[in-house]
């Protein structure tokens, strides 16, 4: 109801219409609130449900919606009167001006980020900033870039990407805790570096296995089948207790070593070897650079692949499958390579995730994760590597920041728990961002083939992605 448009653009503000709209929105909201907000069912001591009445809450929400709807009408009115075109053109020009410096600046910032944080917060306080913000966001950047190959370049909608993330994580966890100690115990410190390529290869293998039967499906059907596969893999991990230890998950997974030197307090540990005082921060910083290198590798491979015949075939396939077939492109092989390479990067990220956490369980690989990664790719503007970074910072960083809002407790009382609103805000943000920019944040991109000069292509010129 907040999207009602006025068909006749008049200069005078139509107050009656705006009030009518606001009143209507309020009525609808109150109707929606009647049972679900105004009453709450709580268990009593005998585990029986008793009703609590909260009409004030329904009234407050209704009031807020009425005000919001009225302000929206005002906003629409003022936007019609000023020249919206010009301002947006001005913003675009400003963006174009700073664009050449954006990449090196951003790159420089992420390279020194952990050191800046270390300097600002000291070894104890900076772990949170490097781990929760830095590493967490970079994992999603890498997953986003990996999924971008499948969704953004090849145009195959994958709702079960988290399955490959899980394959990578469980491959590392099982090999490092069960296989290596039994066969080659002396390789224990190298476990992460040995398993990283293995995890990627296994994930790619699963990508091919799952992809082969379903790739002749198109569009939404493919999306739903990939969702089903993602759920099947998670359910098997939960139920096959002998293999994966079920819900309890796998713990004491070896952490990565500094190329053979473990991060511990022993005499052969990292701190002792380099003559530093022992602190867990070194491992966190090292992990940050590992995931940074891994994600940059993903971006590098994506950029290179786009210039190879297979990358060109992916983008052609996304635009028109029938034309591709008539030109003799083997669509099955082309789709499978996209699926396998995307899965491989998911596997690398999964291996890193298991090594960073030291503990994994099927809870980490629910559908919500897939949805979150897909949201990052789509919100970023599919096909745009830079867009994925912006979307990851906005979504993942935003969620992490919501954990930090303890000061709200002082406003709303001590029973108020901001973290329980985290996913609610995430859902609202996902819908609002789609409404605001359906084609993603970065909706132009450089073309793959250049004739004389580079020209940005508008997102609306292409089918699925951009460029």
């Amino acid at each position, binding site marked *: *109801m*907040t*999207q009602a448009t006025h068909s006749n653009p008049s200069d005078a503000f139509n107050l009656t219409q705006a009030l009518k709209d606001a009143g209507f929105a309020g009525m*609808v909201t109150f*109707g*929606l609130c*009647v*049972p*679900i*907000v105004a*009453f*709450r*069912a*709580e*268990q009593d001591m005998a585990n*029986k*449900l008793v*009703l609590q009445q909260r009409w004030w*809450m329904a009234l407050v929400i209704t009031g807020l919606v009425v005000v919001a709807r009225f302000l929206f009408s005002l906003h629409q009115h003022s936007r019609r009167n000023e020249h919206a075109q010009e301002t947006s053109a001005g913003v675009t020009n400003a963006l174009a001006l700073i664009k050449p410096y954006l990449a090196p600046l951003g790159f420089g910032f992420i390279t020194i980020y952990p050191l800046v944080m270390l300097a600002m917060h000291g070894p104890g306080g900076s772990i949170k900033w490097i781990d929760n913000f830095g590493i967490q966001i970079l994992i999603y950047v890498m997953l986003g870039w990996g999924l971008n190959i499948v969704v953004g370049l090849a145009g195959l*909608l994958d709702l079960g990407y988290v399955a490959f993330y899980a394959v990578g994580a469980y491959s590392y966890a099982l090999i490092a805790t069960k296989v290596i100690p039994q066969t080659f115990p002396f390789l224990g410190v190298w476990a992460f570096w040995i398993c990283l390529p293995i995890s990627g290869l296994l994930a790619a293998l699963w990508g091919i296995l799952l992809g082969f*039967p*379903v790739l002749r*499906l198109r*569009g*939404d*059907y493919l*999306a*739903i*089948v990939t969702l*089903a*596969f993602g*759920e*099947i893999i998670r*359910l*098997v991990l939960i*139920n096959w207790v002998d293999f994966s230890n079920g819900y309890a998950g796998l713990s004491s997974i070896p952490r990565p070593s500094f190329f053979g030197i473990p991060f511990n307090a022993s005499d052969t540990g990292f701190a002792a070897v380099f003559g530093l005082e022992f602190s867990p921060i070194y491992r966190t910083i090292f992990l940050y650079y590992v995931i940074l290198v891994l994600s940059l590798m993903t971006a590098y491979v994506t950029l290179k692949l786009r210039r190879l015949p297979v990358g060109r075939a992916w983008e052609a396939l996304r635009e028109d499958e*029938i034309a591709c077939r008539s030109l003799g492109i083997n669509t099955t092989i082309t789709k499978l390579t996209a699926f396998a390479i995307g899965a491989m990067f998911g596997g690398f990220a999964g291996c890193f995730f298991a090594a960073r956490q030291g503990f994994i369980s099927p809870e980490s690989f629910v*559908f*919500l994760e897939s*949805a979150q990664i*897909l*949201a990052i790719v*789509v*919100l970023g503007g599919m096909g745009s590597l830079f867009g994925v970074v912006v979307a990851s910072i906005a979504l993942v960083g935003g969620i992490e920041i919501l954990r930090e809002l303890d000061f709200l407790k002082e406003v709303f009382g001590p029973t108020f728990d901001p973290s*329980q*609103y985290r*996913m*609610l805000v*995430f*859902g*609202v*943000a*996902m*819908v609002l961002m*789609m*409404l605001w920019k*359906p*084609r993603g944040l970065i909706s132009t991109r450089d073309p793959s083939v250049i004739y004389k000069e580079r020209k940005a292509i508008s997102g609306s010129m292409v*089918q*699925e992605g951009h460029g």
Partner: protein
Amino acid sequence: MAIFIQQLINGLTLGSIYGLIAIGYTMVFGIIGMVNFAHGDVFMVSAFIALLLFLVATTLFGFGIVPALFLVLVLGMLITGLWNWTIERTAYRPLRGSFRLAPLISAIGMSILLSNLIQVIQGPRNKPVPPMFTQVLPLFEENGYTVGIGYKQIVIMVVTAVLLGLFWYIVQKTPLGRAQRACEQDQKMAALLGIDVDKTISLTFVLGAALAAVAGVMYIMYYGVINFSDGFVPGVKAFTAAVLGGIGSLPGAVIGGLLIGLIETMWSAYFSIDYKDVAAFSILAITLVFLPTGLLGRPEVEKV
């Protein structure tokens, strides 16, 4: 044999619930070609609405169980319809005609929003529903195993059958149904002939939600418990049912729902209850690979 018949009854009951949800998926897909990902959560919201209305009717107004249920059914359908109308209006309509993935992402966001909204306003714990219609009608006995049909199973099947009949009448015989079928075939042409396409699409969402609300009432009656996260799995299973029956086909959705219900109960009874969801998801994958148009769907014509 006795166990088989008992499972057949249980499966058909469960299948009725899936079939009711599946119609919402199949209608929306038929008319705007979109997988309404939030439909499972609309079903969950409707179950909460039903639970609260039932408590209000029985505790505040002192209704008996049967009149209370009737009231819950009618009001629940209306309020859930209003919810889905609002969702369509705010989250999907502005994206109509945008690129293909936008409404799907919006629907996924809406699904996250709905389940977490319920978690925030109704609390994260399971809500036990007061038991109703607990009697069982014994049918026959074999080797000491009594086959019976619960009164609530009878209620579920009868109500489902009646409402499906009513629904079939609406789609086949009323102007609204005609407009809806016309929009399904060709929206532009329908608009040229004076059909209000936006209104028809909105009403499709309302109808789908009303049937999901019936499923919600049946679900809390059958399982006796509801939780904010209970929308996802029944939603995916109902979608499986819609695909199995042939997406876009209304009788297909009902048949698909009954089949999924039967397969799930039979699998739990004869193989392993742990893997019942795996079985349902595998069927989805196998159907789409070998029978992409489903049982009653129209084959998709590829146009160049």
